């Protein structure tokens, strides 16, 4: 028997861990906090639509959901002003609580990485988030996004090289 969502009676298409990951991928892609529930809902809807179309379940639901979330974030980004997103991201980090394991150095580094993410192209940011937050392999990213593996590698390489520069600059300060 499949689990159901207690508040709606709808089948629970994504488990709690998958939902958390989708939410984070959306957030890292620039979707503001207030829109995250809608974003998660959109991913669920895409999964239902896929099943209703007779295409069946993705072979790897987690990877599929992360990729869909990253694409949704890119679409959202195209329709919103970039500046507002940056301010929200940095504001959230400044206001972060409960960083017991963090400390100022770690927080400063995370802020710098957040700024570094903003300097990446949407496509670069997407592969970085899918690789290092959603834990998809290069092959999985290529499959889910429908692009050649070489393209994913190239985007990743360029993006991470840029972010490494940010990390080293922070350490040098």
């Amino acid at each position: 028997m499949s689990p159901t969502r207690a508040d709606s009676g709808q089948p629970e298409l994504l488990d709690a861990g998958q939902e958390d990951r989708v939410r984070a991928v959306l957030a890292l892609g620039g979707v503001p906090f207030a829109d995250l529930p809608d974003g998660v809902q959109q991913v669920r809807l895409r999964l239902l639509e896929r099943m209703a179309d007779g295409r069946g379940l993705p072979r790897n639901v987690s990877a599929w959901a992360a990729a869909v979330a990253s694409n949704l974030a890119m679409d959202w980004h195209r329709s919103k002003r970039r500046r507002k997103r940056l301010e929200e991201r940095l504001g959230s980090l400044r206001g972060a609580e409960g960083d017991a394991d963090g400390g100022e150095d770690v927080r400063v580094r995370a802020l710098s990485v957040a700024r570094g993410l903003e300097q990446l192209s949407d496509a670069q940011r997407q592969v970085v988030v899918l690789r290092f937050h959603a834990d998809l392999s290069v092959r999985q990213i290529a499959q889910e996004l429908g692009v050649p593996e070489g393209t994913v590698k190239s985007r990743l390489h360029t993006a991470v090289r840029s972010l490494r520069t940010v990390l080293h600059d922070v350490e040098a300060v």
Partner: protein
Amino acid sequence: MEHKGDDAIREDPLMYVLTGEPLPPELERDAAFVAEYRAAGADTAALRDDLARIGEALCREPAGRRGTKGRLAPRRVAFRARRRWALVAAAVAAMAIGAVVTGVVRDDAQNRGAPPEAALTPVGRLACAEVVAEGLVVDAARVDGGSVKVTLRVDRHYKPERGERLLSFSAPPQPAGAEGAAGWSGSRLLVLVPQAEGAVAEVFREGEPAPPGAPEGGSGDALEWGRSLVADSLEESRGKPCPAQH
């Protein structure tokens, strides 16, 4: 130009880290290359850590909007989304959805909450582990945040080679429900408990699918893959520092 192709960057140490491909023997003998490779591994581990931190911060309700409890605001479903939901739900209702959906809810928590070391090579992951052991779960319970407090009756100590009979650690968050932590009791697993205090352990539980990145051709079982990881890389990892801490 963004796409340079494989050839131009194939021999870059960073590319091996990004793809998770093992270093060829001839490059393993190149000390300068290996040093660059390790530095890239440490940087990507830090990047993974930062992304987790940023993602967590961005998913937290901003200060000033926070309610009396709960980390997320009440779910708000836009009218258009609700309408789409209704239409799609109607279409899906015609299907034997219960049977279909059963396969959807799978536990991918092995990847969530994993320490930054997970970005490293197998040797690096083992070097970053304080304890590597295998045994039967005698108790498992979800705690705040969704992670699982596990007590393991150890019957094989890999690292160190001797240790306590009972081992307790925090496993990655598990989904609520029948397939959650309650189902762990009595199951066999192998665990990599990280050195970092408070970090979540990496778990390979029998009967679960091997995590993404596992080499193809194996049984596909997480425990079997964990054992092969230990068999292949534990000796090499002994005495090596944890790259994520250097």
